């Protein structure tokens, strides 16, 4: 029942997004604008500050992710559908997992556009070590989304949710962004530092395990008013 409910919630979010394209379009537009602004500011005569591309990629992921989190849960607030989801006869953590998978998928789509764009504008060979790079993106995205989904769900009934989400989210996800940036920078060095990248991936994977477990454990009491 747990898996079934989580997948149903994911499928429902995808179906709504396919119809409205609301979150995908705003997230992508914001992410691309963010990268373009940094490219105009930091690229001079074809040369760029060392490690800038890594930082810009992760900043764009974090900012557009925050936007996507807010919009996705706004949908559940509009007609109080979150209450109807919480009435499903399954562990309420299944709702969390379904929403988390939706956010990860959405950020994955954003990254599909962001990575080639940053690579092009900053002349950065992200895929010199493709497996390690994908590992960094995946673990970093899951970590950011795990914390973000929990906070966005908690704040769905709060009037100050738009202000509170970044205030709560960024301090806790700073390790994810730092690990993502350092791991990506290690892969982009003249001689790619694979052990360093692996270390950052392991750190991100640990963060994911800790925060997904914590969210699964706390979601039900936090969502019961």
């Amino acid at each position: 029942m747990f898996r079934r409910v989580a997948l149903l919630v994911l499928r429902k979010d995808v179906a709504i997004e396919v119809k409205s394209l609301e979150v995908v379009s705003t997230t992508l537009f914001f992410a691309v604008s963010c990268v373009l602004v940094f490219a105009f500011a930091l690229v001079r005569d074809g040369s760029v500050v060392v490690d800038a591309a890594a930082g810009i990629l992760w900043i764009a992921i974090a900012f557009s992710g925050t936007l996507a989190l807010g919009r996705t849960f706004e949908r559940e607030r509009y007609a109080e559908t979150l209450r109807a989801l919480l009435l499903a006869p399954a562990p309420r953590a299944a709702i969390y997992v379904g929403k988390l998978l939706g956010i990860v998928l959405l950020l994955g789509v954003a990254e599909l556009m962001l990575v080639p764009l940053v690579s092009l504008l900053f002349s950065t060979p992200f895929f010199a070590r493709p497996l390690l790079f994908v590992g960094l993106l995946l673990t970093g995205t899951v970590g950011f989304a795990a914390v973000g989904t929990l906070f966005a769900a908690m704040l769905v009934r709060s009037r100050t949710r738009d202000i509170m989400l970044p205030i709560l989210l960024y301090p806790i996800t700073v390790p994810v962004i730092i690990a993502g940036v350092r791991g990506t920078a290690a892969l982009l060095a003249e001689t790619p530092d694979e052990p360093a990248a692996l270390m950052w991936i392991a750190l991100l994977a640990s963060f994911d395990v800790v925060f997904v477990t914590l969210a699964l454990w706390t979601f039900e009491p936090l969502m019961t008013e």
Partner: protein
Amino acid sequence: MSGDFDSVRVVGVSRHFGRRRALSTISLTARSGEIVGLLGPNGAGKSTLIGVLATLVAPSSGEVRYGDRPVRELGPELRHHIGLLAHELHLYPELSARQNLTFFAGLYGLDRQEIVDRALERAGIVDRADDPLSNFSRGMRQRVALERALLHRPRLVLFDEPFTGLDDQAVGLVADRLRVLAADGCIVFMATHDLDLADGLVTRVALVRSGKLVSDEPADADLRARYRELVRQA
């Protein structure tokens, strides 16, 4: 299905939100076949009590017993037997009526398409089943919401201001459905502050005021006079 019950007992339930006391040691029992009208002015605590019965709001003290078992013993399975219709429709406006009902049926493990088809028929929107819900009138959306709440044939049916924004015909349909549910053995709670609609429909009246249960008695012939008298006394 396991976990079914034929009575609901609210035992000394209180609920505080910070320093505000929304419910204060409320106790009442409802049995199969009853339509209990939770009456009271705005802010009396009716919606909080509906939330507690739906397991969406945890009591600060006291408990609700479904049959003879508390929530913690029954687990998520209990929610198979609870249906909630509120003023907010709990439906996705971007999706069609069919998609909404199919999704919610899936949440309850009901995969058969005929369940959704029957619900669409009962809602009277078969010809518009694939239109986005956002194109529907308030009354049509409410009919879909009613079917959504009852898809899984719940034992405990909770209605929180179900008639808001409905025209007379839609009100009549919802009221008829309530009577059928009670006749089928459901336990129905209906929170409302509209005495005209409650009159002749509810079989018992629980008057809530400032979070306290002021009265719990069989529905009187002249509900409005009794209500005025109770509110004055409180």
